[in-house]
């Protein structure tokens, strides 16, 4: 089992999954870092995005990768509207309200999906679903490699936005000192909604990269959201670099765990890490000491 020819493909496989995890976690950590919202509706929003990609492919024949320019802005608009229209209004400025509002949103979205799509597990078939590339002793499915590259590119773009653009500076300002930012003329409500929109836009990108090698059903988000929370805690709440490294690490841990312990028990490694981080390094790998 410890041969290179077996371990290496498993690690590669884990890295490709981990990149998508990272992208999902980036959206979550952005929303947390700035808005201090623990977004329980993150998984449900991913599910919505996956159904969007699925419908575009099955109804209009649009390839999931070509659907990126539709799904990402679509999810951004949904996120912006959700934050300004529902979450911001219903919270009345109290964090515990926001928790309940996002939890409620996730329940509403999941049950709407159940009503519209039934509990069926749906997949899409593309010409490249079964194509593999050989890297050394490993055969990696093409959609996974595309997901890896795409997720890294999207993460890079997000980091660039936060570090280099005016919007990014505003986001960082609001995250550090809300009142100060407001005094400097920053429209805080707008920045909040932009963050939520960008966070959901990340999910839109993740959905496009995920679906060619994955499936969608109304409960699909819950598995991801647990992993994404683990990654955010592991990397440090609100840390972008942490989310990226944490995502890749968790992907590899899951893959190796699956290899040695079997598919059902393989995920145990993820949650062991979650508990260990909370016990010994609660600020996360890249987080500042609280």
């Amino acid at each position: 089992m410890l041969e290179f020819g077996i371990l290496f493909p498993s690690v590669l496989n884990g890295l490709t999954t981990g990149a998508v995890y990272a992208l999902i976690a980036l959206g979550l950590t952005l929303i947390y870092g700035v808005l201090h919202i623990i977004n329980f509706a993150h998984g449900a929003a991913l599910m919505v995005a996956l159904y969007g990609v699925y419908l575009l492919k099955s109804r209009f024949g649009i390839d999931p990768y070509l659907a990126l320019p539709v799904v990402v802005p679509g999810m951004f608009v949904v996120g912006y509207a959700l934050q300004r229209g529902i979450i911001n209004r219903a919270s009345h400025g109290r964090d515990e309200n926001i928790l309940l509002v996002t939890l409620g949103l996730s329940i509403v979205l999941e049950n709407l999906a159940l009503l519209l799509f039934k509990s069926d597990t749906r997949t899409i078939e593309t010409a490249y679903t079964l194509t593999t590339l050989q890297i050394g002793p490993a055969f990696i499915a093409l959609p996974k490699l595309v997901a890896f590259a795409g997720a890294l590119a999207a993460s890079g773009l997000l980091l660039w936005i936060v570090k280099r653009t005016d919007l990014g500076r505003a986001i960082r300002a609001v995250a550090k000192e809300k009142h100060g930012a407001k005094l400097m003329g920053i429209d805080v409500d707008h920045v909040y909604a932009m963050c939520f929109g960008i966070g959901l836009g990340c999910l839109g990108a993740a959905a496009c990269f995920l679906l060619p090698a994955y499936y969608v059903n109304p409960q699909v988000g819950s598995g991801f959201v647990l992993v994404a929370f683990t990654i955010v805690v592991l990397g440090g709440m609100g840390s972008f670099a942490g989310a990226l490294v944490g995502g890749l690490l968790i992907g590899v841990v899951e893959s190796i765990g699956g290899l040695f312990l079997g598919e059902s028990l393989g995920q145990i490694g993820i949650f062991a890490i979650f508990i260990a981080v909370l016990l010994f390094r609660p600020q996360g790998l890249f987080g500042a000491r609280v």
Partner: protein
Amino acid sequence: MSNRRTFIQQSAAAATTLAFPLVGGAQAKAVKVGILHPVTGALAFSGQQCREGALMAVEDINKAGIKGLGGAKLEVMLGDAQSTPQAGAAEIEKMNEAGCAAVVGAYASAICLATTQAAAKYNLPHVVDVGVADQIVQRGLKNTFRFGPGYAACAQVAVGNLHVLNTLAGKPAKTVMIIHEESLFGTGTANLLARELPGFGFEVKDVIKHANPTRDFNNIVLRMKSVNPDIVIPANYYNEYALLVRTMQQQKVMPKAIYSVLGGAASSYKFLKEFPDAANGIIDCNHWFNPKDKRAAELRQRTEAKGLFFTYEIFNTYTAVRLLADAIDRAKSADRAAITDALAKSTFSDHFMPYGATRFENGQNMGAQPLMTQVIKGDIRVIVPREYREADPIFPLRA
């Protein structure tokens, strides 16, 4: 000789005929039957196939009506078990409330276990169409009847025949790896296989289970690469089976044989059409029809004319509904106890399965048996037993 009850029934029927001479036989009261399958959720494909098979049987039965009940027709109440035992049991409650005379279902073993038990509370006769776990018929439930074989019988046939094939080929295969789904069906089958195989000189190298749905078999196939077994035995449902075999193809893992038990490419025209290359040479031990019976070929044509694949779900449930109609006919009544009694004494033989006339012992049809099939030259052929053989087996596939 007629007792008081049948006398009253007959007089009532006669009175109805006299009162409405113009409509006559059409007045026979319809018999309500529940058709319960997991038509949504992880098992949706199989559940929908079962439902289609059942509906085709009802269509055939209703052409002439049930003679023993004055040409009464079957009225179908459809149920959806949503791929979970709880939802299946809840549907039984509804079917009982609605006054169903009997139920046919519910495909998956774990669901059948729940639905038969729920139906037993109301003495509601339950014909199990697929559900291979033997616990289904081993709990002493008087209402439960399974037409097809259980997994112990199938595992025995599979292992016995694997031994014969291997011996005839000069024993090229020594090691086995079993991959199964995690519910009752897969786990039970895998346990039986793992217990039986060593007795025939096979070493079971690894037994791996996976969830439903699983969308990534890379780790399992990597493990397979490392173990390098001569024979791979999958026991799982369609989606995961297809993905497993395709991942093996992607990762270029080629064992001496893929030998599926209760499922697989060599008993699925769907798999054969979708992945002809991956299907080639695969051997299955599964529910299959008598290939020499013309009625099976006719039903296959009808199924394909509807744009559906003629899978075991279709013909198993089709014949299960015919079995129930036959029992209602013999019972000459829509009364639950009378139908249960007629099922227990059933000698139903007007079908195309390789079972002979039914003979139930504790709810299990004793003549039921799986057949061994193999994908040979792009078609599914029966290879064992001899009386149904269409082609000689190819084993091992690769030296």
